[in-house]
């Protein structure tokens, strides 16, 4: 009997030891927030989460947007993909296309009832009967300017395209450019062109049946206006990405630009005078009454089939959206990342950030603009797989270049875009 007791005690202690030293569930998290200060803030949050959840270990592996479209599918094919993956709506369609993403319906429902999502941020991830990602932060294009320059030129903040063009012409003096709009075959140009398309009623690029509806008078009108404004932009704007536009604004060479945010650049490389920094909705067509914009809701996909990892990953996502943590997540890049939840938009952890506090009125305007955000390919409630390739190949920007670089008319450039998109959709 004594021997049995000793054996039982020994077995029990072994089991306990095994429990005490059991490995935590490891979660690999790929995100594309590469700048060191963002990685550092993310690590601070992960350290805090991992400490509070000893049975889970979330590890970040920063990637670049330039590579992830090729790298993630290859990693999933090789069985080395992450468990959580940052994404934007069109990238999500690519990952869904290779069957690597798991629906997060239950978690989305729970987070919706607890925090309340801004509808424009979750809608691009809800199709085919499921929610495919949990929104993390929002970005929306606004028009940026300097109050002092407008005042000196006697300009009111433009609300319509005609007013914007007139303002840009007035600001184009002494080697300065009234507006800085890109015409590169790149995502930034897709975004700025679409920001005008939204404002002329050309936001839908698909019909209900999946055919392309790019070629319409509203798109042509947006292209015509963009072309006219682009002539007032610096001559090298055909090779611009986001950085060059911000630099042009920071150096006061450009009077107005369309950008997600210039706060960081303005704070670190320009005057850093919040009273002078102006932000307004993107002007709309003269026959429209309300401004809209393009918004990119960045979200996190669950990309593991392992149930234990799924549960651990969901615990992490729920923790991240808690207002006490969420504000610090958003302010990894203060003044750029906007809240996707209603309580996140009021979180003390967000508004207490020094930069957000300093530029409070600008951030409030950005948040207001983001609520009218739309994204090409995700406006009709139906999502078609070809949007990944249409976005990836920057067809909107390529069509614009037909007009800006090759001298085609707006109508011909739009016709080219329709043809190219239809080809892609047909493949």
């Amino acid at each position, binding site marked *: 009997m004594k021997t049995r007791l000793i054996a039982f005690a020994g077995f029990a202690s072994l089991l306990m030891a095994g429990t005490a030293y059991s490995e935590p569930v490891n979660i690999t998290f790929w995100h594309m927030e590469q700048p060191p200060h963002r990685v550092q803030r993310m690590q601070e949050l992960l350290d805090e989460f991992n400490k509070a959840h000893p049975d889970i270990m979330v590890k970040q592996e920063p990637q670049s947007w330039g590579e992830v*479209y*090729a790298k993630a*599918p*290859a990693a*999933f*094919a*090789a069985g080395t993909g992450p468990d959580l993956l940052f994404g934007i709506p069109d990238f999500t369609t*690519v990952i869904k*296309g*290779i069957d690597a993403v798991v629906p997060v319906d239950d978690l989305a429902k729970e987070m919706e009832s607890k925090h309340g999502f801004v509808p424009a941020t979750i809608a691009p991830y809800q199709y085919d009967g499921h929610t495919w990602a949990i929104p993390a932060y929002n970005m929306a294009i606004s028009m940026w300017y300097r109050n002092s320059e407008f005042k000196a030129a006697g300009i009111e903040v433009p609300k319509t395209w005609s007013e914007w063009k007139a303002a840009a012409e007035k600001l184009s003096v002494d*080697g300065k450019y009234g507006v800085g709009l890109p*015409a*590169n*075959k*790149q995502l930034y140009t897709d975004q700025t062109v679409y920001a005008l398309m939204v404002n002329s009623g050309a936001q839908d690029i698909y019909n209900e049946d999946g055919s392309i509806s790019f070629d319409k008078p509203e798109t042509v009108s947006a292209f015509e206006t963009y072309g006219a404004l682009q002539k007032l932009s*610096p*001559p*090298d*704007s*055909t*090779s611009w990405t986001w950085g*060059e536009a911000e*630099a*042009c604004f920071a*150096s006061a*060479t*450009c009077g107005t630009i369309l950008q997600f945010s210039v706060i960081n650049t303005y704070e670190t490389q320009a005057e850093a005078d919040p009273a002078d920094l102006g932000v307004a909705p993107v002007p709309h067509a003269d026959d429209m009454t309300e401004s809209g914009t393009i918004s990119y809701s960045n979200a996190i996909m669950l990309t593991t089939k392992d149930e234990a990892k799924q549960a651990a990953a969901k615990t992490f996502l729920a923790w991240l959206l808690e207002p006490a943590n969420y504000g610090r997540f958003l302010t990894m890049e203060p003044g750029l990342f906007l809240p996707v939840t209603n309580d996140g938009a009021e979180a003390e952890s967000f508004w207490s950030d020094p930069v957000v506090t300093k530029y409070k009125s600008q951030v409030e305007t950005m948040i207001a603009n983001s609520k009218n955000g739309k994204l090409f390919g995700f406006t009709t409630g139906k999502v078609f797989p070809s949007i*990944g*390739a249409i976005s*990836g*190949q*920057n067809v909107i920007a*390529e069509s614009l*270049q*037909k007009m*800006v*670089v*090759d001298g085609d008319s707006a109508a011909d450039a739009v016709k080219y875009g329709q043809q190219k998109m239809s080809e*892609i959709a047909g*493949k």
Partner: protein
Amino acid sequence: MRTGIAMSNPRLAFLFVAPALAFLAAVLGWPLVQAIILSFQNVGVIGTAGSWVGFDNHVSVLGGLGFWNAFGRSAIWVVGNAAVQTALALGVALILNQKFPGVRIARTWIILTWIVPTVVVVIIWRWLLSTSGGMVNPLLIQAGVIDRPVGFFATREGSMASLIMINSWRWFPFTALMMLAGLTRIPSDLYEAARIDGASAIKRFTRITWPLLQPTLLVLGIVGTLLSFNVFDVIWLLTAGGPSQATQTLPVLIYETAFKGYRLSEAATVSVLTSLLLMGFALLATRAMTASEDAR
């Protein structure tokens, strides 16, 4: 006449080169085989399954304008780079072949642009050529060359020319050092004899330097063409093939097709066809080089 181990014990010689061959087969041969297989399928996104489509991709690529237009741009890119780099490198090599104080330092410093990482080169030139604070536009305006800032990547022609200049700026030191090595192999007594015979500097260059530099130039021509043809990073980072596809060379087309258009098999087809073109060129150039050596 062949001598040594290769003739006396071919098996042992093969054993020596076998590891290198195995390595090359693993890192080059296997991907090439995979690319060939992919080119006969219809795979879209990497990692997804595809079915066999025979020569459909090849017919489609060779019958479309995209491949041939990109090939044409690649040809312009290669010829442009060859011309600019040869001119710059030859001039610098001739200077560095002279004896003057600091020549050793100059020979070392000349490789600076070559060792700078591509991304740094791109950032430097983007900034220099920018119309918002860049240095080149104000300098050209001050010099009276232009009267207002110009966009170096704004037009089709300007974009390709700017890229060629930037890439040549980066690579000409390598070419210059190769040429310098070739120049140092030319016996100095030939120049002395020519001087005694009263040959001018131009005559010495055209009758001695240029002909005796031909083997080096031929090798550089082959290697440089292959290297230039495959340049992707500088083009992608500076123009991404734009504006309006003006700088979309074959490597850019392959990348865009595979990773932007998600047509992996089509991209593999372009890759295989490009490889065949380059192999054909290398074969012809090597034969020409051998014939040239035999003639000497």
